[in-house]
């Protein structure tokens, strides 16, 4: 069991194993996303009130999902890196931060674009929107902190500490923002709870969500691989990989 764990945690092993399954998840991801897109954009019925503009939901909702999930993946990796000092976890954390931030940004952007036709404004201070923005700041903090330290070992430790504090805080932030919002009960448009969606609209959404999970995985694995190559560039196996092409890795 432990042996297996440590083997998995060895960057070299991960690089080689991921090389084998990356094409597969890429294909699956491509499949789900194109299926979802074609279905959602082409075949799902128009929304009664919002017309075609609702179709942005097929990007918006999946990326909102992954934005949050991504933070926990990042923080968990940070915790593992700090507690068990596992190199690979360190790299996962480093790779997860910008990817998560990117998904958060896409969620914010698509939401804002969607807001204009629906609410007539790009932005309202809705509880979920606001907490999404705060999440984005948390990500930014981790990324900037990480890149500001020049000493690599320190940068990931510092960022992991911050991510951990953030993890304790995320539920608190969400609770408080929610509480704040219900307290004020603003008269403006409310961000309705999952509108009871027609199954024809909902099914492609599910497909897109699955597709986005794959997309996230692809992005994460790919950037971990780059990070591994970078950090282990001095080691023999990487040199072999780069200079002689005898490794049959794709």
């Amino acid at each position, binding site marked *: 069991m432990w042996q297996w764990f440590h083997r998995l945690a060895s960057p070299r092993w991960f690089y080689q194993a991921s090389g084998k399954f990356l094409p597969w998840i890429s294909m699956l991801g491509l499949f789900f996303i194109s299926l979802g897109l074609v279905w959602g954009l082409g075949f799902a019925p128009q929304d009664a009130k919002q017309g075609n503009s609702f179709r942005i939901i097929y990007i918006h909702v999946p990326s909102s999902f992954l934005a949050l999930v991504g933070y926990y993946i990042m923080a968990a990796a940070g915790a593992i890196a700090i507690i068990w000092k596992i190199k690979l976890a360190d790299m996962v954390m480093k790779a997860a931060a910008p990817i998560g931030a990117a998904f958060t940004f896409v969620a914010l952007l698509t939401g804002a674009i969607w807001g204009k036709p629906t609410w007539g404004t790009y932005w309202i201070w809705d509880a979920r929107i606001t907490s999404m923005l705060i999440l984005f700041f948390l990500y930014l903090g981790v990324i900037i902190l990480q890149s500001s330290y020049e000493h690599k070992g320190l940068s990931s430790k510092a960022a992991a500490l911050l991510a951990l504090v953030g993890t304790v805080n995320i539920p608190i932030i969400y609770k*408080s923002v929610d509480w704040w919002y219900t307290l004020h009960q603003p008269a403006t448009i409310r961000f309705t709870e999952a509108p009871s969606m027609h199954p024809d609209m909902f099914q492609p959404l599910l497909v897109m969500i699955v597709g986005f999970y794959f997309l996230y995985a692809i992005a994460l694995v790919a950037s971990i691989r780059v990070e591994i190559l970078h950090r282990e560039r001095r080691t023999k196996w990487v040199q072999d990989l780069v200079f002689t092409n005898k490794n049959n890795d794709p």
Partner: protein
Amino acid sequence: MNTGFMVIFRRDLLVAIRHRGDLANPVIFFFIVIVLVPLGLTPESSKLSEIAPGILWVMALLASLLSLDSLFQNDYDDGTLEQIIILPQPLYFMVLAKIIVHWLVTGLPLSLLAPILGMMLSLPDAGYPALVLSLLMGTAILSLLGAVGAALTLPLGKEGLLLPLIVMPLYMPVLIFGANSVQLAINGFSVIGPLATIGSLLALSLIVAPYVTAGALRLSIQG
């Protein structure tokens, strides 16, 4: 009491008193910024009184935040930190002492001054007790969480405002509960709920923050 705690506590208090001017600075900053608001916004007291709880809280938060920069910086620059960290004393208490002194010279006076500024912004009478209580506890949380940020950004140099970016998201719950407790009090509701929440946030950060700060400080001298 723990030696490390007492020594650092007295030392930092002495340093704060030596810089006599600095003691008053967060307070003066708070004061000036609050004066800016009517200038930039509106002098009408009816409108001011509406935004008063929020503005007071936001500005108290900023005042406390901005004085954090120097919490560990001088000790880091002059080599004290490096030598303190390798003492055979638990770092937790020394860090806690520094944070408490920080609160004593910023949060505490800010909270006590707030009613006067509230008056200037026509804060309705019912809001004052909640304002002072929420600020007293809230600024303590700010000092605690802020210390984490200050320690994490320590080796990165003074330039830049990375610290606010890091701690601001962590501050948001405190701000929300703090400002809203004042608003609730003004509207005649009970404030026990939000104040209790702030209290438990304080307890939580009192336990967690000094540990994380100590860890970050240990990192900072590895450079």
